[in-house]
């Protein structure tokens, strides 16, 4: 069986999974709400003549503020449910079985199936990023209008948007890998969502050892490209950071792929 057929079936499966769309909507609507509030604050501050109490009045920064946190939560949810839904027990009336048994009967070649799942995560995260990131920047622009002073050049804006999409995609793949290993969405959801928030275990670890800057979420955080005075100092630069984060994603994918291939379903 080629990769194309499992990809098509997995795409349809995920597209009809409400939880996957919940992940997309979390990223889209959650960030839009934050952006609208932020943009109204900026407009109000400029109208009141007190823009100096804000860090800046740039429409791009305003629309971008929710991306590192809310967008990552969306990517994590997508990564978790694509594989986690396979292991949820069905209703007792229909046998109480797990969907993974049916999936493996339809696609017995497990590496192909796992690669198809990873591609689905990438497709969904890319689709979410494509709508969410430009959408939020446009929303911020529409609300702020000419009141703000843009500090980000178009080239920087494109680079930062693409880097953010890369971070989301890698986070989605990491979530997929960890969920494949645990066969339940609970632990990956708790760890990855908590880590993307202020209550970050990785951030806490950086206070104890500089090695923690090499953890995937800390390594990739410069990809968001925030001005250095607003972020935690130290750590890896964007390009080495992206490579370290990509390395984590690759290693976790390989380990999860091998375990998925060899383990009893």
């Amino acid at each position, binding site marked *: 069986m080629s990769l194309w057929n499992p990809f098509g079936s997995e795409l349809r499966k995920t597209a009809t999974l409400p939880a996957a769309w919940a992940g997309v909507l979390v990223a889209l609507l959650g960030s839009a709400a934050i952006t609208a509030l932020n943009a109204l604050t900026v407009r109000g501050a400029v109208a009141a003549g007190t823009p100096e109490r804000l860090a800046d009045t740039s429409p791009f920064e305003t629309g971008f*503020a929710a991306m590192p946190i809310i967008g990552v*939560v969306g990517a994590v949810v997508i990564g978790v449910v694509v594989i986690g839904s396979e292991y949820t*027990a069905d209703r007792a009336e229909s046998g*109480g079985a797990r969907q993974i048994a049916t999936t493996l009967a339809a696609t017995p070649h497990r590496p192909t199936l796992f690669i198809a799942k990873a591609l689905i995560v990438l497709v969904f995260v890319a689709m979410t990023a494509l709508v969410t990131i430009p959408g939020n920047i446009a929303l911020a622009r529409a609300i702020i209008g000419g009141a703000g002073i843009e500090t980000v050049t178009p080239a920087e804006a494109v680079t930062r948007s693409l880097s953010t999409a890369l971070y989301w995609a890698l986070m989605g793949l990491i979530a997929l890998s960890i969920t494949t290993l645990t066969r339940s969405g609970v632990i990956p959801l708790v760890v990855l969502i908590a880590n993307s928030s202020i209550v970050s275990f990785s951030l*806490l670890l950086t206070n104890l050892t500089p090695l923690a800057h090499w953890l995937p979420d800390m390594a990739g955080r410069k990809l968001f490209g925030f001005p250095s005075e607003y972020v935690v100092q130290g750590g890896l630069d964007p390009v080495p950071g992206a490579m370290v984060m990509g390395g984590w994603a690759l290693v976790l994918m390989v380990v999860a792929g091998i375990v998925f291939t060899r383990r009893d379903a």
Partner: protein
Amino acid sequence: MTLLTCVSSEITKLRTLPLAVLAAVGTVLIGAVITAALAANAVDQGAPAGATAVLQAVPFAQVGIILLGILPAAHEHAGSQFRTTLVAVPNRGLLATGKTLAALIALTVTAALTVGVSLATAAIAHHLSSVPLPARGAEPWALAGAAVYLSLIGMLAHVVALLVRHLVPALVTMLALVLVVPPLLAGVTEHARWLPDRAGSLLYLPGADTALTPGTGALVLVGWVLVIGAAAVAAFITRDA
């Protein structure tokens, strides 16, 4: 069937649910390990390692207690267990009460253990250092407040799970409501103080807000639990299983 037997059967269910035990033990361990890390860090910088480290560990420990709060309601819907439960306890009002009391007991015990073990960890870390003991402040109240806060945030997780019934949506809702949204909103509007974790955190960080006191902050958090709880119980009683 009396309320007492109902509560005891619900507690038996929780006690024998591996994930619930894991969540409770995990909460205590997270609290202790993070406290130890923060205390070690404080001692390194020559500061006393005391209750402050315990209080700073509370936001991390709440992740575990949220999971524990979600499980009593959510695990019933992971298979067909909920219908078995309803056969045994057909009175749904009684069942909701019993389940909530069982959750409250499990959460309170876990919260108290978390704060207690964390405090012991901090005390050991302090004992191993040569930093002088600080003058005693209002810390005992803040520590008790931390335990109350953890129980209440767990109860919020319980009522949310009772309302949405399934583990993953309840977990994402709670983690977003408690961890993700507050910092983003706090940068935008002062009304972020009415969010459950911001209001409740005054219990262990008294004086962090200008409008709310620990007492009124706790009331706001209790208000969240009661409002969502009322909707959850109404749905629990009227909805098809």
